[in-house]
Structures are given as C-alpha cells and as structure tokens.
C-alpha cells in the first residue's frame, strides 16, 4: 500500500500522476534496441548498465544506434574506475596503479578484477569486465581514443585525490578544490561525451571550442548530487562541501546537521545552491548545440532533474536529516516534457520560481540568489525574447498613426491548461444553474416528496406546458436582448 502522503501528493498533483502512467504504459521510445543483432557480451553490458544506474540506463538505451554503444561503454568504463576509487578497503599500493593504468586495461582482452570488497555495490562489473573490453575493441577508433583519453585523465585525477590527505570531515578546503574534484569526476564526462557527439555529427562542433560549457554540464549535476548527499556522505564519514563555504557558517562540518544550527545550515545550503546555479545558464547554452533528439534527451533529462532537485533542496531543512529526492511522478513529468530547448528553458524557469518563492531576506545570500535566478531568466530571454521585433514594430506604427503611446503588456488570456479546464467547468456549472433559475422564475416547481423520488419527476409545471421549450425560449430571448441591447 502506498503511504497516505504519497496518495495525497498525487491527488494534489494530477499532472504528475498522468505523466507517470504515460511514461510507463503509453510511451514509445525514440529508438529501439534490436537484441537479435546484439552479441552476448553487449547484452551483458546493457545488463550491467541497468544494474549500475537505472536512470542513466533508460536514457542511454534510447540513444540513436550510432551513439548507444559508445556512450554505454564509456559509462561502464567510468563506473569501473569509480568502483575502484570508491572502495576504502583497497590499499593505495593496489589502488593507485590500477587507477592510473585503467586506460591501458581497456586494450587487454580478458582482464577482470575481483579484489573489491564484497560490499562494493558494483563489484560484479569488474569481475566480468572482460565483456566491456571485448565490446570496446569493436568500437570505431575515434570513439576508442576519446574513451581511453578520458579514462586516463580521470584515473590520474582520482590517483591524485588518493595520494592527497586522508579523507576527513573537513570537506575540500577551497571552492577551487571543490571545482577541481567535480571536474575530475564529472566535468571530464562532459568533455568525453562532447568529443563522442561531434564526430558523429550529433552536436555542433563549436561545443568543442567552449570547454566552460561542457564542464558546466558535468559540474552542475555533480554539485547538485553533492549538496543532496550531505547526510549519506556524513554517514560514510565523507564530505565534499568546500570549507571555504561551510566555514562561513559553522566551526565544525558536523555542526551543520545539528538541529540548533538550522538557520546557519540553511544559509550554508543556499550558498551551496548559489554556487551550483552558476552553471545553469551554461548548461542551457550547451543544450542549444545538440542536433539529435535522442542525444538532446540524453543530455537534457539529467539537467532538468538537477534543477528540480536543486529547487527541492533550497532552504529545505529535511536535507540535513535524510536523503531527499524529487517524487517519481515529478521525474516522469520532467522526462515526458523534455521536448526541445524551449520547453527545457520553461522547465528551468518553473524551478527558478520555486527557488525564488522560498528565498527570504533572512538568508544572508538572499540578494545573491535573486541575482542568480535573474541571470538565468535574462539568459533565456536572450534566446527566446518575450517581446518580439514584430510586436515592437507594430507598436511604433500604431503610435505614428495615432500619436498616442501604445503599451506592450501581457495578454489577459490564461495559458495554463488547468486554468482553462477550470474555467470551462465553472461556466458549464453556471450555465446549468442559470437554466434551473430560469425554470424556477417562469413557474416550474421542484418537488422532492416521496412520490417524486419513486417516479424521478422532480419538476412540475403549474400550467402543464412543456417546460423545456419554455426555458429554451426565454433563454434565447434573454440572450438576444442582451446582445442587441433591445432594452436600451
């Protein structure tokens, strides 16, 4: 049985319920897999994909065929690296060479690794890593080069972190270090994907010349995850919040979780959100450079999930107590509405509104958050102006003719489907009311006696004439009178 809170959520958010049902039962994926043509190894790779990440698997498997295998393998290779880095039971003497040489392992058929702790959740992937290597060998050289290069850089970055000071609960010292860490684990993924997309012709080559954009794609996602995972990481005795930020609010990192520090913790949280929001407009800019719908969906879905999560986290004390997530229905709604850059921009705007609604002058970052939200809105305005050139020209023409200022304002018609549905219902209801009232006025009697219930005849006319005809006539008369102002 679902919890009462869940039922209540979907009663008040029918759109999400609808999206969830659609996503599950009514949706056609953009591209289908063809399992008959897949080798046994590739099938196993896809199984690993689904095991390691449900959310990523869905979008990867729907990629267009040219991109599907390279992206899936790229993802598994990085997962492999991550599984080694993550395992605290591995000795640095084993771990560091493994991380640094991982890119070479990709060209060693038959390589597997069973040294991970049994508790490591993706250990099986490395146990059977030879299937990944086999499929990697079949890729086009351009894709192989990219995956190898990124694996090399990421392995190097991870090794550096391992050699650094032991992980403690101070988090990373400076925002610079935080950005650097996020670059190695996520920014590089953005780089790799872009380098896969461009040769395949599914992204504008200009994206390669703007590292800031693809790095932001990764950093935005990573930072949202880091903020959200406060509690989870704390329980694993890890922290990634930069001291440069949390140090402004509390003396000790663990103090953030204490109830008496709630206001300080919220301020720290809004500072972290502010830092993440910095990447939002870059992400939209990047998405504008994608040329294939399936690739667009693949890139945009995680981004809208991230902005939705960020809106959920912002000034939310629950985050310090447990791991909070956006409701499944909301996630489905986001995936269903992904469409194109315009709808993605609308989604961003929607969540900017959510953030703004929670922003308060009590927060020391109040104005900065407001400015950042506005910056994203201004960026979107630059792509999709709300006042068109044509509107402006028409305004000037009219002014030249009439000599009076013409004001450009918003239209009074509602755009929201729900509002329109409500209005239709409301007016239908009023219409029925009106009919009854008219019937009453011209002399119909309402009879709710026991006999009436038996025969279901609640209305009677005093003078036995056809009530329906009478009502219709009087309504028609009233309407025509009003419309033609006969009474005036």
């Amino acid at each position, binding site marked *: 049985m679902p919890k009462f809170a869940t039922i209540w959520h979907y009663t008040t958010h029918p759109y999400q319920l609808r999206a969830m049902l659609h996503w599950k039962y009514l949706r056609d994926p953009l591209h289908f897999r063809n399992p008959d043509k897949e080798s046994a190894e590739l099938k196993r790779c896809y199984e690993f994909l689904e095991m390691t990440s449900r959310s990523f698997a869905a979008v990867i498997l729907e990629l267009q065929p040219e991109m599907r295998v390279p992206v899936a393998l790229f993802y598994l290779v990085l997962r492999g690296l991550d599984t080694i880095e993550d395992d605290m039971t591995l000795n640095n003497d084993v771990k560091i060479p493994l991380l640094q040489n991982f890119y070479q392992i990709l060209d060693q058929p038959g390589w597997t690794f069973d040294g991970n702790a049994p508790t490591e959740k993706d250990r099986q992937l490395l146990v059977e890593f030879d299937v990944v290597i086999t499929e990697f060998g079949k890729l086009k050289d351009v894709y192989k080069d990219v995956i190898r290069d990124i694996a090399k850089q990421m392995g190097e970055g991870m090794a550096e972190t391992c050699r650094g000071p032991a992980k403690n609960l101070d988090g990373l010292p400076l925002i610079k270090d935080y950005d650097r860490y996020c670059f190695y684990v996520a920014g590089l993924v953005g780089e790799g994907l872009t380098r896969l997309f461009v040769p395949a012709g599914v992204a504008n080559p200009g994206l390669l010349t703007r590292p800031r954009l693809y790095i932001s794609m990764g950093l935005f996602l990573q930072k949202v995850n880091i903020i959200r995972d406060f509690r989870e990481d704390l329980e694993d005795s890890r922290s990634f919040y930069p001291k440069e930020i949390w140090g402004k609010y509390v003396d000790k990192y663990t103090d953030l979780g204490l109830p008496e520090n709630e206001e300080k913790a919220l301020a720290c949280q809004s500072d972290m959100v502010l830092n993440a929001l910095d990447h939002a407009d870059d992400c939209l800019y990047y998405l504008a450079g994608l040329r294939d719908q399936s690739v667009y969906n693949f890139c945009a879905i995680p981004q809208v999930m991230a902005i939705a999560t960020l809106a959920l986290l912002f000034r939310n004390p629950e985050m310090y107590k447990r791991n909070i997530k956006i409701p499944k229905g909301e996630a489905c709604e986001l995936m269903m509405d992904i469409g194109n850059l315009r709808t993605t921009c609308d989604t961003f705007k929607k969540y900017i509104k959510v953030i703004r609604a929670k922003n308060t*002058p009590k927060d020391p970052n109040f104005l900065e958050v*407001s*400015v950042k939200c*506005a910056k994203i809105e*201004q960026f979107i305005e630059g792509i999709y102006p709300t*006042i068109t050139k044509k509107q402006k020209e028409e305004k000037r023409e009219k002014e030249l003719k009439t000599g009076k200022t013409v004001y450009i304002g918003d239209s009074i018609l509602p755009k929201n489907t729900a509002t329109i549905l409500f209005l239709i219902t409301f007016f239908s209801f009023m219409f029925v009311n009106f009919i009854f009232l008219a019937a009453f006025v011209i002399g119909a009697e309402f009879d709710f006696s026991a006999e009436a219930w038996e025969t279901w005849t609640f209305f009677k006319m005093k003078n036995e004439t056809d009530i329906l005809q009478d009502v219709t006539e009087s309504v028609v008369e009233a309407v025509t009178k009003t419309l033609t102002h006969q009474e005036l």
Partner: protein
Amino acid sequence: MTTANQTPITSCLVIGGCGFLGGAIVRSLLEKHPNCRITAADIRLTGQIAHKNLKYVTVDITDLASISSVVENAKAEVVIHTASPVHGLGKEIYMKVNVDGTKNVVEACVRGGVRVMVYTSSAGVVFDGSPLVNVDETEPFPIIPYDAYNESKAIAETVALEANGKGGMLTTALRPAGIFGPGDRQLVPGFITVVKNKQTAWQLGDNTNLFDFTYIDNLAVAHILAASVLLHQHSTTGVTDASVDQRKHLDGTSIFVTNGQPVYFWDFAKAIWCHYGVYNAGSIVLSRSAGLVIAGLAEGFSKLMGREPGLTRFRVKFSCAHRYFDIRKAKDLLGYEPEVSLTEGLRRSIEWFKAEGEKEGK
C-alpha cells in the same frame, strides 16, 4: 590596468565634477590614472578633494563663454560631461541644461581641440512606459517620449554623438540605469523612506519584473574605460565609418552600462530593508491593477488635500514593469566588468547612509 586597446589618460576635464557621478569619476581617475591632470568643473564647488593633480573651477554650461574658457584653460585631451539636473524639475530647465548645455560643451570641445568626449546619457532615453526587456543598443528612441527629462536626454545624446568626427574628436554616450551608492540622493533614500514610514508590508505586483541598477563606482570606471578606449582609437584608426554596425564600435554610438546584475524589483527593496531589521517585507501583495486604482484615488485625494501623494500611478507602473538591459556591448568593447557587486554596493551604500543618519542625529 590598461589593456591593448586602451591608452592611459594624461589630462581630463570632468564637467559636473562635484556631482554624485562626477565626483566618483574624479576619485576613480586619481586611482586608476595617477598621472592624469584633472580639472573638475561644476556650477557650485562642493566636497573638494585636495590633490596635486586636481584642480576645481566653476562653470555654467548654459553659458558658451563660460564653458569655452574652462575647456581652453583645462587643455584636456579628454572631456567627460556628466552635468545634468535632477529629476522632477520643469521641461524648460531640462532643455536648457541638457540640450543647450550639451551643445555648448560640444562646441567648446571642438574649438578647444579636445580628442575624446564622453557624455553621460541615461537608459531612460529608450523608455516610454512600456517594459524594457533585455534591451540593447539597437532599441530606437521612442516615438512618443515619456517625459521632458528623458526627451531632453535623448536630444542631448544625439547632439553629443553627432559631434563624433568633428575636428577629429571622438564621442560616445553612456546610458546608465538605476545609479546608486554612497551619496545618492534619489534611489536608496527612496527605499529607506519606505522603512521610516513603516510601509514595507506592501508589495505591488507579483515581483517577477527584473530591474537594472548600477553601483556608482562601476559606472565611474566605465566612463574612464570608454575614454581610454577612444583615446587609443584616436591615435590609431580614428573615426569609424558610420556604415559599420553600431554594436561593433564605440565612437558616435551609445552604450548601456549597468551592474550587469538585473534583479527582481522587490527583492532589491527587501535586500535594503533587511539592513534595517525588516525581514518580512512584502507580506501583503497588491496586484498591479488594484495598485493602479488605489494610486488613482490617492492622487485625487492628495490633490484635494494639497499634499504630495505617497503612491502614484507612475510608481505602480514603474515598480511592476521589467526594466533591464543587455550590456554585452560594454563588456565586449570596453572590457567592462563591474568590480563591485550589487550586494557589496548595497552594503557600502547602507553603511554610508547609516553613518550620515548618525551625523544628522548628533
């Protein structure tokens, strides 16, 4: 701090040099171009700074003889013209000071062999009451000007820009929006009055409209950047042909300058008020249309009572409409990056106002 396309300024005349903006430009020049010989001219000399490179003179720009002699004596390669009367005066005075005054300044500069003239225009020159949404320099002047002030600024800007190329002189016009900072008598004090009148509970409109503001020191820097970019151009390529896209060159064109951080109007207000201990501002939201009706009544009532109305229809429309600009041209051509953020600028302003309030209290 000068980069490739900028030349250090060696001599500069700042007209309106004792004003809010002019004073800031003088201070900025002393800091960024320490070898620059500065003449600060104003109709009344107040708040003078003692410095070996700085000299103060009185000037009346509505008098051609007066401004001519000041320009001649200053022997400056750069003239920055910031003088303009405050809002709320009559049309006559605006036309006289802004339009005729600027004509006199231009004539004096051309005759005096000035190389670069920078004119302080206003973002209001494109305002006619309709919202200004992410507007850039391609936006034309409105067909019907909003009021006498903005109309006179638009004409004066045209005068300044048409002087580009005369006698080899290069001109540009900066269009700032919502200038504030320590010493500002209009913007921030207006918001502080609301706190003093305990009217912060009210919010007009849904607070979705973006507004641009400009911290005074950033604007001062932008003027100096414009001057040194044009100075460089004067000694290299000279006047740009008028057929070149106006977004690609500075001389003979206008340029919007703001803090580059548009913000929701009431958020800016709330950010000021929380410095005065008000954290729950805007708890009563009055829609724009309701606000207009009430303001109309208030205006009528005040007229009967012979008082200044607190709420006017202009204020309602003003605080509910977008008014922000695209300043990419300033960033690209001037290398302008606002050094003082909105938050920091506000902090400095409020600190100053509080100190001023204490002085007055004593």
